[in-house]
Protein backbone atom coordinates (compact mmCIF):
# COMPACT_ATOMS: atom_id res chain seq x y z
CA UNK A 1 0.00 0.00 0.00
CA UNK A 2 3.09 2.16 0.24
CA UNK A 3 3.11 3.30 -3.37
CA UNK A 4 -0.55 4.27 -3.34
CA UNK A 5 0.23 7.92 -4.10
CA UNK A 6 -1.56 7.80 -7.46
CA UNK A 7 -4.43 5.42 -6.85
CA UNK A 8 -5.58 5.50 -10.46
CA UNK A 9 -2.48 3.79 -11.85
CA UNK A 10 -1.19 1.99 -8.79
CA UNK A 11 0.69 -0.94 -10.26
CA UNK A 12 -1.12 -4.07 -11.29
CA UNK A 13 -4.17 -3.30 -9.16
CA UNK A 14 -4.87 0.10 -10.76
CA UNK A 15 -8.48 1.18 -10.96
CA UNK A 16 -8.04 1.84 -14.66
CA UNK A 17 -6.97 -1.76 -15.23
CA UNK A 18 -9.96 -2.95 -13.24
CA UNK A 19 -12.32 -0.87 -15.34
CA UNK A 20 -10.64 -2.19 -18.48
CA UNK A 21 -11.07 -5.84 -17.47
CA UNK A 22 -14.62 -5.33 -16.25
CA UNK A 23 -15.56 -3.63 -19.52
CA UNK A 24 -13.97 -6.49 -21.48
CA UNK A 25 -15.91 -9.05 -19.46
CA UNK A 26 -19.16 -7.17 -20.04
CA UNK A 27 -18.54 -6.94 -23.79
CA UNK A 28 -17.89 -10.69 -23.85
CA UNK A 29 -21.07 -11.40 -21.89
CA UNK A 30 -23.24 -9.22 -24.11
CA UNK A 31 -21.77 -10.71 -27.29
CA UNK A 32 -22.18 -14.23 -25.98
CA UNK A 33 -25.74 -13.60 -24.83
CA UNK A 34 -26.78 -11.82 -28.01
CA UNK A 35 -25.58 -14.12 -30.73
CA UNK A 36 -24.06 -17.13 -29.01
CA UNK A 37 -21.11 -17.39 -31.41
CA UNK A 38 -18.90 -17.87 -28.38
CA UNK A 39 -20.13 -21.42 -28.47
CA UNK A 40 -17.93 -21.89 -31.51
CA UNK A 41 -14.93 -20.85 -29.43
CA UNK A 42 -16.00 -23.46 -26.91
CA UNK A 43 -16.29 -26.01 -29.67
CA UNK A 44 -12.74 -25.15 -30.69
CA UNK A 45 -11.55 -25.30 -27.09
CA UNK A 46 -13.22 -28.69 -26.64
CA UNK A 47 -9.86 -30.43 -27.04
CA UNK A 48 -8.87 -28.91 -23.71
CA UNK A 49 -12.31 -28.83 -22.10
CA UNK A 50 -13.52 -32.37 -22.66
CA UNK A 51 -10.65 -34.20 -20.94
CA UNK A 52 -11.30 -31.96 -17.93
CA UNK A 53 -14.96 -32.99 -17.99
CA UNK A 54 -13.92 -36.62 -18.01
CA UNK A 55 -11.52 -35.97 -15.16
CA UNK A 56 -14.17 -34.14 -13.12
CA UNK A 57 -16.64 -36.91 -13.84
CA UNK A 58 -14.31 -39.51 -12.35
CA UNK A 59 -15.40 -39.14 -8.68
CA UNK A 60 -19.03 -39.80 -9.58
CA UNK A 61 -18.01 -42.67 -11.83
CA UNK A 62 -15.90 -44.03 -8.98
CA UNK A 63 -18.81 -43.77 -6.57
CA UNK A 64 -21.01 -45.76 -8.96
CA UNK A 65 -18.34 -48.42 -9.34
CA UNK A 66 -17.81 -48.55 -5.59
CA UNK A 67 -21.50 -48.85 -4.89
CA UNK A 68 -21.61 -51.86 -7.20
CA UNK A 69 -18.41 -53.34 -5.77
CA UNK A 70 -19.51 -53.03 -2.17
CA UNK A 71 -23.17 -53.84 -2.67
CA UNK A 72 -23.83 -57.15 -0.98
CA UNK A 73 -24.87 -60.19 -2.88
CA UNK A 74 -28.40 -60.12 -1.52
CA UNK A 75 -28.96 -56.62 -2.82
CA UNK A 76 -27.68 -57.47 -6.28
CA UNK A 77 -29.75 -60.64 -6.41
CA UNK A 78 -32.85 -58.68 -5.43
CA UNK A 79 -32.13 -56.08 -8.05
CA UNK A 80 -31.56 -58.74 -10.66
CA UNK A 81 -34.82 -60.44 -9.72
CA UNK A 82 -36.70 -57.15 -9.94
CA UNK A 83 -35.22 -56.35 -13.34
CA UNK A 84 -36.20 -59.80 -14.60
CA UNK A 85 -39.76 -59.29 -13.44
CA UNK A 86 -39.84 -55.85 -15.05
CA UNK A 87 -38.54 -57.29 -18.29
CA UNK A 88 -41.10 -60.06 -18.24
CA UNK A 89 -43.91 -57.62 -17.62
CA UNK A 90 -42.65 -55.24 -20.31
CA UNK A 91 -42.33 -58.10 -22.80
CA UNK A 92 -45.81 -59.34 -22.03
CA UNK A 93 -47.18 -55.84 -22.52
CA UNK A 94 -45.19 -55.46 -25.73
CA UNK A 95 -46.59 -58.71 -27.12
CA UNK A 96 -50.08 -57.53 -26.44
CA UNK A 97 -49.26 -54.13 -27.91
CA UNK A 98 -47.77 -55.62 -31.06
CA UNK A 99 -51.16 -56.65 -32.35
CA UNK A 100 -52.62 -53.25 -31.56
CA UNK A 101 -49.64 -51.49 -33.12
CA UNK A 102 -50.05 -53.51 -36.30
CA UNK A 103 -53.71 -52.66 -36.45
CA UNK A 104 -52.86 -49.04 -35.82
CA UNK A 105 -50.25 -49.08 -38.58
CA UNK A 106 -52.83 -50.54 -40.94
CA UNK A 107 -55.43 -47.94 -40.06
CA UNK A 108 -52.87 -45.22 -40.52
CA UNK A 109 -52.02 -46.55 -43.96
CA UNK A 110 -55.70 -46.31 -44.78
CA UNK A 111 -55.70 -42.76 -43.48
CA UNK A 112 -52.57 -42.05 -45.52
CA UNK A 113 -50.50 -40.56 -42.69
CA UNK A 114 -46.74 -40.90 -42.46
CA UNK A 115 -46.30 -41.03 -38.72
CA UNK A 116 -44.92 -44.26 -37.41
CA UNK A 117 -44.61 -45.73 -33.96
CA UNK A 118 -41.03 -46.77 -34.51
CA UNK A 119 -38.49 -45.23 -32.16
CA UNK A 120 -34.99 -44.54 -33.35
CA UNK A 121 -32.92 -44.07 -30.22
CA UNK A 122 -29.34 -43.83 -29.08
CA UNK A 123 -28.15 -44.79 -25.62
CA UNK A 124 -26.09 -42.22 -23.72
CA UNK A 125 -24.47 -42.05 -20.32
CA UNK A 126 -24.62 -39.10 -17.97
CA UNK A 127 -21.22 -37.63 -17.06
CA UNK A 128 -21.27 -36.49 -13.44
CA UNK A 129 -20.28 -32.84 -13.87
CA UNK A 130 -21.77 -29.78 -12.22
CA UNK A 131 -22.33 -27.05 -14.82
CA UNK A 132 -22.81 -24.08 -12.52
CA UNK A 133 -24.99 -23.41 -9.50
CA UNK A 134 -28.71 -23.72 -10.16
CA UNK A 135 -28.18 -24.56 -13.80
CA UNK A 136 -30.45 -27.46 -14.58
CA UNK A 137 -28.22 -29.07 -17.16
CA UNK A 138 -26.77 -32.51 -17.73
CA UNK A 139 -23.68 -33.57 -19.61
CA UNK A 140 -23.88 -36.68 -21.82
CA UNK A 141 -20.98 -38.75 -23.08
CA UNK A 142 -22.02 -38.55 -26.73
CA UNK A 143 -21.53 -35.56 -28.98
CA UNK A 144 -21.50 -34.19 -32.49
CA UNK A 145 -19.23 -37.01 -33.67
CA UNK A 146 -21.89 -39.53 -32.66
CA UNK A 147 -24.47 -37.65 -34.69
CA UNK A 148 -26.10 -35.75 -31.84
CA UNK A 149 -27.71 -32.49 -32.87
CA UNK A 150 -29.09 -29.64 -30.74
CA UNK A 151 -32.82 -30.00 -30.27
CA UNK A 152 -32.93 -33.76 -29.85
CA UNK A 153 -35.26 -34.92 -27.06
CA UNK A 154 -33.77 -36.89 -24.19
CA UNK A 155 -35.87 -39.45 -22.30
CA UNK A 156 -35.35 -42.09 -19.66
CA UNK A 157 -37.39 -45.18 -18.90
CA UNK A 158 -40.12 -43.17 -17.17
CA UNK A 159 -40.51 -40.03 -19.20
CA UNK A 160 -39.13 -36.94 -20.85
CA UNK A 161 -35.95 -35.51 -19.32
CA UNK A 162 -35.06 -32.58 -21.55
CA UNK A 163 -33.46 -31.65 -24.82
CA UNK A 164 -29.94 -31.26 -26.18
CA UNK A 165 -28.99 -27.60 -26.33
CA UNK A 166 -25.30 -27.67 -27.20
CA UNK A 167 -22.95 -30.26 -28.62
CA UNK A 168 -19.18 -30.61 -28.38
CA UNK A 169 -17.30 -33.24 -30.41
CA UNK A 170 -17.78 -35.98 -27.83
CA UNK A 171 -20.12 -34.50 -25.22
CA UNK A 172 -23.51 -32.82 -25.29
CA UNK A 173 -25.28 -30.50 -22.85
CA UNK A 174 -28.93 -31.22 -22.05
CA UNK A 175 -31.37 -28.65 -20.67
CA UNK A 176 -33.71 -30.40 -18.26
CA UNK A 177 -37.46 -29.85 -18.39
CA UNK A 178 -37.25 -28.44 -14.85
CA UNK A 179 -35.00 -25.57 -15.98
CA UNK A 180 -36.83 -22.25 -15.58
CA UNK A 181 -35.94 -21.41 -19.20
CA UNK A 182 -37.60 -24.51 -20.57
CA UNK A 183 -41.16 -24.67 -21.86
CA UNK A 184 -42.77 -27.90 -22.96
CA UNK A 185 -46.11 -28.26 -24.74
CA UNK A 186 -48.10 -30.87 -22.85
CA UNK A 187 -51.55 -32.36 -22.81
CA UNK A 188 -53.44 -33.67 -19.80
CA UNK A 189 -54.08 -37.34 -20.45
CA UNK A 190 -57.53 -37.55 -18.84
CA UNK A 191 -59.14 -34.53 -20.45
CA UNK A 192 -56.97 -33.85 -23.48
CA UNK A 193 -56.46 -30.24 -22.41
CA UNK A 194 -53.41 -28.73 -24.08
CA UNK A 195 -51.20 -26.37 -22.13
CA UNK A 196 -47.55 -25.56 -21.48
CA UNK A 197 -45.33 -26.79 -18.65
CA UNK A 198 -42.50 -24.53 -17.57
CA UNK A 199 -39.56 -25.36 -15.35
CA UNK A 200 -39.56 -23.88 -11.87
CA UNK A 201 -37.20 -21.64 -9.98
CA UNK A 202 -36.37 -24.39 -7.52
CA UNK A 203 -35.70 -26.77 -10.37
CA UNK A 204 -37.41 -29.83 -8.94
CA UNK A 205 -40.90 -29.54 -10.40
CA UNK A 206 -42.91 -28.25 -13.33
CA UNK A 207 -45.29 -25.30 -13.30
CA UNK A 208 -48.36 -25.01 -15.52
CA UNK A 209 -49.38 -21.39 -15.03
CA UNK A 210 -51.96 -20.99 -17.78
CA UNK A 211 -54.77 -23.48 -17.29
CA UNK A 212 -58.18 -21.94 -18.02
CA UNK A 213 -60.36 -21.45 -14.92
CA UNK A 214 -63.13 -23.57 -16.41
CA UNK A 215 -60.86 -26.52 -17.18
CA UNK A 216 -61.15 -29.62 -15.09
CA UNK A 217 -57.78 -30.52 -13.62
CA UNK A 218 -57.22 -32.79 -10.64
CA UNK A 219 -54.29 -33.75 -8.52
CA UNK A 220 -52.93 -37.00 -9.92
CA UNK A 221 -53.65 -36.22 -13.57
CA UNK A 222 -50.90 -37.43 -15.85
CA UNK A 223 -49.20 -35.13 -18.34
CA UNK A 224 -48.05 -36.28 -21.78
CA UNK A 225 -46.12 -34.42 -24.46
CA UNK A 226 -48.58 -32.99 -26.94
CA UNK A 227 -46.24 -32.88 -29.90
CA UNK A 228 -47.13 -29.30 -30.68
CA UNK A 229 -44.12 -27.28 -31.68
CA UNK A 230 -42.53 -30.31 -33.29
CA UNK A 231 -39.67 -30.67 -30.84
CA UNK A 232 -40.95 -33.60 -28.81
CA UNK A 233 -42.92 -36.48 -30.30
CA UNK A 234 -46.43 -36.76 -28.84
CA UNK A 235 -47.44 -39.23 -26.15
CA UNK A 236 -44.42 -39.40 -23.86
CA UNK A 237 -45.12 -39.17 -20.13
CA UNK A 238 -43.96 -35.88 -18.62
CA UNK A 239 -45.24 -35.82 -15.06
CA UNK A 240 -48.07 -35.97 -12.63
CA UNK A 241 -49.99 -33.04 -11.19
CA UNK A 242 -49.39 -32.55 -7.48
CA UNK A 243 -51.19 -29.30 -6.72
CA UNK A 244 -53.81 -27.09 -8.37
CA UNK A 245 -54.65 -23.58 -7.16
CA UNK A 246 -55.87 -20.34 -8.70
CA UNK A 247 -52.94 -18.26 -9.99
CA UNK A 248 -52.12 -15.02 -8.20
CA UNK A 249 -53.47 -13.06 -11.16
CA UNK A 250 -56.86 -14.73 -10.75
CA UNK A 251 -57.12 -15.27 -14.50
CA UNK A 252 -55.91 -18.86 -14.66
CA UNK A 253 -55.45 -21.97 -12.62
CA UNK A 254 -51.86 -22.75 -11.77
CA UNK A 255 -50.79 -26.36 -11.34
CA UNK A 256 -47.57 -27.92 -10.15
CA UNK A 257 -46.37 -31.24 -11.45
CA UNK A 258 -43.77 -33.77 -10.44
CA UNK A 259 -41.64 -34.91 -13.41
CA UNK A 260 -42.01 -38.61 -14.06
CA UNK A 261 -38.43 -38.99 -15.30
CA UNK A 262 -35.83 -39.74 -12.66
CA UNK A 263 -34.18 -36.41 -13.29
CA UNK A 264 -31.52 -36.29 -10.62
CA UNK A 265 -30.70 -39.98 -10.55
CA UNK A 266 -30.68 -41.29 -14.10
CA UNK A 267 -27.34 -42.64 -15.25
CA UNK A 268 -28.38 -43.90 -18.65
CA UNK A 269 -30.67 -41.96 -20.94
CA UNK A 270 -32.03 -42.31 -24.46
CA UNK A 271 -31.62 -39.75 -27.23
CA UNK A 272 -34.42 -39.74 -29.81
CA UNK A 273 -33.56 -39.45 -33.49
CA UNK A 274 -35.91 -38.75 -36.39
CA UNK A 275 -38.45 -36.74 -34.50
CA UNK A 276 -42.01 -37.29 -35.53
CA UNK A 277 -43.84 -34.72 -37.57
CA UNK A 278 -45.58 -32.26 -35.30
CA UNK A 279 -49.21 -33.11 -34.81
CA UNK A 280 -51.92 -30.53 -34.60
CA UNK A 281 -52.69 -27.35 -36.46
CA UNK A 282 -50.29 -25.80 -38.98
CA UNK A 283 -47.40 -23.50 -38.07
CA UNK A 284 -48.36 -21.30 -35.14
CA UNK A 285 -48.86 -17.58 -35.68
CA UNK A 286 -46.00 -15.58 -34.23
CA UNK A 287 -46.78 -14.77 -30.60
CA UNK A 288 -47.44 -11.16 -29.65
CA UNK A 289 -44.73 -9.24 -27.85
CA UNK A 290 -41.08 -8.48 -28.44
CA UNK A 291 -39.18 -10.38 -31.15
CA UNK A 292 -37.72 -13.74 -30.27
CA UNK A 293 -34.11 -12.51 -30.17
CA UNK A 294 -35.02 -10.25 -27.26
CA UNK A 295 -36.67 -13.08 -25.34
CA UNK A 296 -35.23 -13.25 -21.81
CA UNK A 297 -34.08 -16.80 -21.86
CA UNK A 298 -30.40 -16.80 -20.91
CA UNK A 299 -28.01 -18.99 -22.82
CA UNK A 300 -30.75 -21.44 -23.63
CA UNK A 301 -32.75 -18.98 -25.69
CA UNK A 302 -31.73 -20.45 -29.01
CA UNK A 303 -32.83 -23.89 -27.96
CA UNK A 304 -36.01 -23.26 -26.03
CA UNK A 305 -38.82 -25.06 -27.79
CA UNK A 306 -41.05 -22.74 -29.72
CA UNK A 307 -44.01 -21.81 -27.59
CA UNK A 308 -47.24 -22.39 -29.39
CA UNK A 309 -49.52 -19.40 -29.68
CA UNK A 310 -52.18 -18.99 -27.06
CA UNK A 311 -54.81 -19.69 -29.69
CA UNK A 312 -54.14 -23.39 -29.38
CA UNK A 313 -55.70 -23.76 -26.01
CA UNK A 314 -59.30 -24.84 -25.98
Amino acid at each position, binding site marked *: *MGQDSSPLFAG*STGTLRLIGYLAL*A*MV*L*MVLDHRNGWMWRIRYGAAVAVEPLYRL*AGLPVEGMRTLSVAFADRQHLTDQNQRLREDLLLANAKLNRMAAVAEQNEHLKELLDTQRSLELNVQLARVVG*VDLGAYRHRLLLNVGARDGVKPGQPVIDARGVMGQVIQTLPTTAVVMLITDPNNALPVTIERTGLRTIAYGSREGDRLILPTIPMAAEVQVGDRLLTSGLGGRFPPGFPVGQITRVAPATTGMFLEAQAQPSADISRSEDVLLLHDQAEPAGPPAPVPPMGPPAELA*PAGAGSAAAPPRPAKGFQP
Partner: protein
Amino acid sequence: MNRQRLGLWWFIGTLVFALLSMLVPLPDVLEPFKPYWPALVLLYWALESGDRVTLGSAFTMGLAADLLDGVLLGEQALRLTALVFIALRFRSRLRFFPMWQQTLAVLALLLNDRILLTIVRVFAGDALPPASWWISPFVGAALWPFVFLLLDDLRMRLRLQ
Protein backbone atom coordinates in the same frame (compact mmCIF):
# COMPACT_ATOMS: atom_id res chain seq x y z
CA MET B 1 15.59 -21.53 -10.54
CA ASN B 2 14.20 -25.04 -10.50
CA ARG B 3 12.45 -24.29 -7.22
CA GLN B 4 10.95 -21.18 -8.74
CA ARG B 5 9.57 -23.14 -11.64
CA LEU B 6 8.20 -25.75 -9.28
CA GLY B 7 6.50 -22.94 -7.36
CA LEU B 8 4.85 -21.71 -10.55
CA TRP B 9 3.59 -25.20 -11.37
CA TRP B 10 2.28 -25.58 -7.84
CA PHE B 11 0.43 -22.27 -8.25
CA ILE B 12 -1.12 -23.34 -11.56
CA GLY B 13 -1.84 -26.81 -10.21
CA THR B 14 -3.87 -25.52 -7.28
CA LEU B 15 -5.88 -23.28 -9.62
CA VAL B 16 -6.64 -26.17 -11.99
CA PHE B 17 -7.60 -28.29 -9.01
CA ALA B 18 -9.97 -25.55 -7.87
CA LEU B 19 -11.60 -25.54 -11.33
CA LEU B 20 -11.99 -29.31 -11.22
CA SER B 21 -13.53 -29.15 -7.74
CA MET B 22 -16.00 -26.63 -9.14
CA LEU B 23 -17.06 -29.20 -11.75
CA VAL B 24 -17.40 -32.17 -9.40
CA PRO B 25 -21.07 -32.47 -8.42
CA LEU B 26 -22.27 -33.06 -4.88
CA PRO B 27 -25.27 -35.16 -3.89
CA ASP B 28 -28.54 -33.33 -4.45
CA VAL B 29 -29.07 -32.50 -0.79
CA LEU B 30 -25.65 -30.90 -0.42
CA GLU B 31 -25.76 -29.01 -3.70
CA PRO B 32 -26.64 -25.56 -2.21
CA PHE B 33 -23.76 -25.92 0.26
CA LYS B 34 -21.10 -26.13 -2.40
CA PRO B 35 -18.54 -23.34 -1.98
CA TYR B 36 -17.07 -21.42 -4.89
CA TRP B 37 -13.64 -23.08 -4.91
CA PRO B 38 -11.86 -20.95 -7.54
CA ALA B 39 -12.55 -17.83 -5.47
CA LEU B 40 -11.16 -19.37 -2.28
CA VAL B 41 -7.95 -20.61 -3.88
CA LEU B 42 -7.43 -17.39 -5.81
CA LEU B 43 -7.96 -15.40 -2.61
CA TYR B 44 -5.32 -17.46 -0.85
CA TRP B 45 -2.79 -16.73 -3.56
CA ALA B 46 -3.75 -13.06 -3.70
CA LEU B 47 -3.07 -12.71 0.02
CA GLU B 48 0.01 -14.90 0.23
CA SER B 49 1.86 -14.08 -2.95
CA GLY B 50 0.38 -10.87 -4.23
CA ASP B 51 2.90 -10.29 -7.01
CA ARG B 52 1.90 -13.52 -8.71
CA VAL B 53 -1.82 -12.84 -8.79
CA THR B 54 -2.75 -9.93 -11.01
CA LEU B 55 -6.08 -8.80 -12.39
CA GLY B 56 -5.01 -10.38 -15.66
CA SER B 57 -4.50 -13.81 -14.15
CA ALA B 58 -7.84 -13.57 -12.33
CA PHE B 59 -9.52 -12.65 -15.61
CA THR B 60 -7.84 -15.55 -17.44
CA MET B 61 -8.88 -18.00 -14.75
CA GLY B 62 -12.44 -16.68 -14.91
CA LEU B 63 -12.49 -17.20 -18.68
CA ALA B 64 -11.24 -20.77 -18.23
CA ALA B 65 -13.99 -21.39 -15.68
CA ASP B 66 -16.57 -19.95 -18.08
CA LEU B 67 -15.36 -22.21 -20.88
CA LEU B 68 -15.83 -25.18 -18.57
CA ASP B 69 -19.23 -24.12 -17.29
CA GLY B 70 -20.38 -23.33 -20.80
CA VAL B 71 -23.04 -20.90 -19.68
CA LEU B 72 -22.07 -17.29 -20.30
CA LEU B 73 -18.56 -16.31 -21.37
CA GLY B 74 -17.22 -13.51 -19.15
CA GLU B 75 -19.46 -14.06 -16.13
CA GLN B 76 -16.86 -15.59 -13.84
CA ALA B 77 -14.11 -13.48 -15.39
CA LEU B 78 -15.99 -10.42 -14.16
CA ARG B 79 -16.60 -11.84 -10.71
CA LEU B 80 -13.05 -13.08 -10.10
CA THR B 81 -11.51 -9.83 -11.38
CA ALA B 82 -13.64 -7.79 -8.98
CA LEU B 83 -12.86 -10.16 -6.12
CA VAL B 84 -9.10 -10.12 -6.69
CA PHE B 85 -9.11 -6.35 -7.11
CA ILE B 86 -10.64 -5.83 -3.67
CA ALA B 87 -8.39 -8.47 -2.10
CA LEU B 88 -5.22 -6.92 -3.56
CA ARG B 89 -6.29 -3.42 -2.54
CA PHE B 90 -6.65 -4.42 1.11
CA ARG B 91 -3.98 -7.10 0.97
CA SER B 92 -1.57 -5.64 3.51
CA ARG B 93 -4.39 -5.18 5.99
CA LEU B 94 -6.08 -8.55 5.37
CA ARG B 95 -2.82 -10.48 5.79
CA PHE B 96 -2.32 -9.33 9.35
CA PHE B 97 -5.87 -9.76 10.50
CA PRO B 98 -6.42 -12.53 13.04
CA MET B 99 -8.07 -15.54 11.46
CA TRP B 100 -11.63 -14.76 12.59
CA GLN B 101 -11.45 -11.26 11.15
CA GLN B 102 -10.00 -12.59 7.93
CA THR B 103 -12.86 -15.08 7.76
CA LEU B 104 -15.38 -12.27 8.12
CA ALA B 105 -13.63 -10.35 5.35
CA VAL B 106 -13.75 -13.43 3.11
CA LEU B 107 -17.45 -13.78 3.88
CA ALA B 108 -18.02 -10.19 2.78
CA LEU B 109 -16.03 -10.81 -0.42
CA LEU B 110 -17.96 -13.98 -1.23
CA LEU B 111 -21.31 -12.33 -0.53
CA ASN B 112 -20.31 -9.47 -2.80
CA ASP B 113 -19.42 -12.06 -5.43
CA ARG B 114 -22.80 -13.72 -5.07
CA ILE B 115 -24.57 -10.37 -5.44
CA LEU B 116 -22.58 -9.68 -8.63
CA LEU B 117 -23.59 -13.08 -9.98
CA THR B 118 -27.24 -12.46 -9.16
CA ILE B 119 -27.12 -9.12 -10.98
CA VAL B 120 -25.53 -10.70 -14.05
CA ARG B 121 -28.10 -13.53 -14.13
CA VAL B 122 -31.05 -11.20 -13.68
CA PHE B 123 -29.74 -9.00 -16.50
CA ALA B 124 -29.41 -12.11 -18.66
CA GLY B 125 -33.11 -12.76 -18.05
CA ASP B 126 -33.03 -15.54 -15.46
CA ALA B 127 -35.52 -15.84 -12.63
CA LEU B 128 -34.41 -14.76 -9.16
CA PRO B 129 -32.77 -17.73 -7.41
CA PRO B 130 -34.35 -19.35 -4.31
CA ALA B 131 -33.23 -18.55 -0.76
CA SER B 132 -30.76 -21.46 -0.59
CA TRP B 133 -28.74 -19.51 -3.15
CA TRP B 134 -27.23 -17.46 -0.31
CA ILE B 135 -25.93 -20.42 1.73
CA SER B 136 -22.84 -21.02 -0.38
CA PRO B 137 -20.86 -17.87 0.68
CA PHE B 138 -21.29 -18.80 4.34
CA VAL B 139 -20.01 -22.32 3.71
CA GLY B 140 -17.10 -20.82 1.77
CA ALA B 141 -16.23 -18.50 4.64
CA ALA B 142 -16.53 -21.32 7.18
CA LEU B 143 -14.10 -23.39 5.11
CA TRP B 144 -11.68 -20.50 4.62
CA PRO B 145 -9.47 -21.12 7.70
CA PHE B 146 -9.05 -24.75 6.68
CA VAL B 147 -8.30 -23.94 3.06
CA PHE B 148 -5.84 -21.28 4.14
CA LEU B 149 -4.03 -23.46 6.68
CA LEU B 150 -3.95 -26.47 4.35
CA LEU B 151 -2.53 -24.55 1.40
CA ASP B 152 -0.08 -22.73 3.66
CA ASP B 153 1.06 -25.94 5.26
CA LEU B 154 1.56 -27.66 1.92
CA ARG B 155 3.51 -24.68 0.64
CA MET B 156 5.76 -24.71 3.69
CA ARG B 157 6.35 -28.42 3.40
CA LEU B 158 7.29 -28.12 -0.24
CA ARG B 159 9.35 -25.01 0.63
CA LEU B 160 7.91 -23.01 -2.20
CA GLN B 161 7.72 -19.27 -2.56
